[in-house]
């Protein structure tokens, strides 16, 4: 079987976690394919799918993905795994958030103390999640200390550390940066911090010349038992990052 | 002096109306005796040429003027009367503002490729290319049509000797002394053998010996059939070669 080149657009956070480098060689060997990974922001990844510049996308923004599929740009969405978000802040925790598991309460404390909060501000999945949570916490934005920076997650963590503020981050990036920044988790575990990943094929009816066969194989392979086990076994800095959930 | 010229051989005037016979005539030609017939070959014909660098001052205006084949012209005139400008105009280095300059069959131009190398103007302060003397000379040879290159290379050795530049072959041309520069510039033109050659103050900065050298080269060119016009403030061996003087004065040209 020779599937040729499959182009996969995914978010940088996924790519940077190293998961794909761990998974894809197995797929490539089994199916005789070459997967070219293009790591961009969620919005851009979906945009590339819409324009037919890639064959398949892998993202974590449920609403945008739903729209992407309902508008007919993507087909066969498959949930493959999830990880979660955490709220991080300075070690001395000026807003006294530590120990608050309820994420809305935690955010209320941040705003009430006028503590510095660094927001992604880039319409990414993480940013949308954050805005959603602020809404649930009924905090009016921007409050004093709220900074929109418009950068990738890693950069935002760096900035948060430099400025000693709070921010919401996905666990993958957090694990990658944990040792490099002067921050600690102040709130985690709330069910609202759930972050599901989907893989979606680009609709072959919209564009000519897509490698649909390859995309389909990849998509199916990712939900196969073999791949799901691999995802569960993936470790970043010794910690489990993703929970495979294709069977749920 | 002015009235002197006017009474002498007044061949061009500011009012074009008074032009009846405005061709310059050679009268003391060293190699060719007698005046040229009106059918004599013309090198150049100027008609109603007018030039001004700024609106309110006309530098010169030349109703009609001819240059015949056997004439070697000494362009005279005080500083700033427009000798260089006139030569540059004739060589096609300045755009003609009004009137016309005709060669029999050449149209010199700054950018077109045809007819190149046939009309040559030597700057008052010659420009030498970066590189050695040898490279400056090679430039000319490589610009010649194929047929003439072989011959030019043979002449090169002779020319270097004639211009007394043989010992400077590998010197960077831009470091030459004032006189050496002038000689090199003339040697380049001598190698080129153009149909028409304008020499702007070729004798400036030269000692008597050097003047003799370039004099020989110019003479050689004339004998090969090149029509030469030169400007010079001093009369020297070089100006002896001329058989016709044009005087730029009062904004027009008087052929003496």
């Amino acid at each position, binding site marked *: 079987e020779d599937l040729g080149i499959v182009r996969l657009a995914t978010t940088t956070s996924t790519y940077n976690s190293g998961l794909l480098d761990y998974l894809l060689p197995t797929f490539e060997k089994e199916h005789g394919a070459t997967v070219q990974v293009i790591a961009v922001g969620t919005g851009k990844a979906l945009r590339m799918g819409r324009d037919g510049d890639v064959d398949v996308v892998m993202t974590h923004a449920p609403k945008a993905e739903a729209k992407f599929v309902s508008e007919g740009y993507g087909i066969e969405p498959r949930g493959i795994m999830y990880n979660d978000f955490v709220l991080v802040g300075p070690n001395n925790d000026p807003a006294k958030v530590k120990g608050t598991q309820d994420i809305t309460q935690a955010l209320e404390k941040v705003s009430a103390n006028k503590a510095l909060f660094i927001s992604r501000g880039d319409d990414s999945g993480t940013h949308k999640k954050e805005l959603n949570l602020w809404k649930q916490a009924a905090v009016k934005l921007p409050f004093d200390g709220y900074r929109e920076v418009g950068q990738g997650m890693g950069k935002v963590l760096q900035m948060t550390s430099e400025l000693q503020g709070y921010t919401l981050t996905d666990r993958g990036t957090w694990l990658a*940066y944990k040792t490099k920044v002067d921050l600690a988790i102040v709130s985690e575990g709330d069910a609202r911090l759930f972050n599901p990943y989907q893989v979606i094929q680009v609709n072959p009816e919209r564009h000519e010349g897509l490698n649909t066969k390859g995309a389909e194989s990849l998509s199916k392979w990712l939900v196969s038992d073999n791949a799901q086990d691999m995802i569960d076994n993936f470790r970043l800095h010794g910690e489990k990052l993703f929970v495979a959930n294709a069977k749920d | 002096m002015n009235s002197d010229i006017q009474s002498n051989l007044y061949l061009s005037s500011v009012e074009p109306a008074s032009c009846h016979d405005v061709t310059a005539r050679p009268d003391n030609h060293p190699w060719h005796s007698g005046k040229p017939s009106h059918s004599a070959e013309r090198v150049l014909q100027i008609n109603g040429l007018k030039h001004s660098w700024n609106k309110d001052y006309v530098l010169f205006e030349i109703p009609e003027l001819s240059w015949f084949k056997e004439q070697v012209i000494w362009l005279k005139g005080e500083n700033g009367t427009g000798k260089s400008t006139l030569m540059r105009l004739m060589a096609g280095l300045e755009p003609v503002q009004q009137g016309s300059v005709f060669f029999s069959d050449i149209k010199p131009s700054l*950018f077109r490729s045809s007819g*190149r190398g046939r009309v040559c103007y*030597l700057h008052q302060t010659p420009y030498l290319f970066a590189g050695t003397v040898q490279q400056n000379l090679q430039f000319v040879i490589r610009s010649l049509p194929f047929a003439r290159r072989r011959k030019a290379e043979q002449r090169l050795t002779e020319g270097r000797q004639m211009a007394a530049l043989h010992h400077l072959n590998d010197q960077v041309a831009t470091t030459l002394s004032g006189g050496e520069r002038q000689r090199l510039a003339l040697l380049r033109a001598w190698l080129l053998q153009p149909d028409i050659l304008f020499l702007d103050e070729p004798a400036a900065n030269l000692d008597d010996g050097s003047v003799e050298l370039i004099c020989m080269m110019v003479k050689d060119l004339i004998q090969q059939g090149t029509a030469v016009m030169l400007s010079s403030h001093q009369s020297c061996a070089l100006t002896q070669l001329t058989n016709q003087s044009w005087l730029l004065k009062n904004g027009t040209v008087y052929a003496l």
Partner: protein
Amino acid sequence: MAALTETFAHAVELLVSGDEQLWTIIGVSFRVSFLALLTACVPAVFLGFILAYWRFPGRWFLLSMTHTLMAVPTVVVGLLLFMLLSRSGPLGDWRMLFTQDAMIIGQILLCLPLLVSMTHTAFQSADKRAWETARMLGAHPLRCLWVLMHEVRYALIASLVAAFARIIAEVGCAMMVGGNILNYTRNITTAIALETLKGEYAQGVALGLVLFILAMILNLGMALLRGRGQLSHR
């Protein structure tokens, strides 16, 4: 400071270790930028010359445009090219997106304005007797141009160096139309961008140093060609 020394040592280590992946990345960088520069320099010299020597109405406007185009961010050039080459774009059928060819086109677009502007300045600063003399000595216009280029060679080399530096160091366009695909369109700068994104600053700086060291070798080599940049006699 210690961190910097360490990073530097790491960079040298990277270079000499002969890591195949790294050399692929370096190869992509230099191959793309060299080809782009090579393609761009001929039209740039002609344009620069025409802008300096041929007076036509609107010349000053063209010059200003050249200057303005330099100020277009590389990512914008990348974006526009991306829109053109995208499957849904007008040139989508070329299937050129995310290839090295696309990167080359992008870099040509990026270095042209700078090259034209700098060659124009070079030609403009030449003595106008140079062109006149070359013409008067019977050379074909193309040979005259060649001589003129020789007269201003230091300035021309400087413009090539600056243009090369601009494109080998740019990331916006390469990322956009190249896609940073490992072993294929990943070059040094997009690799640096990736490392930075990951927070691997040391690795990013090390890659930057690798580029710096290679550029230095190239430039020191050129310095000999450049004749050590002395003053011109006249």
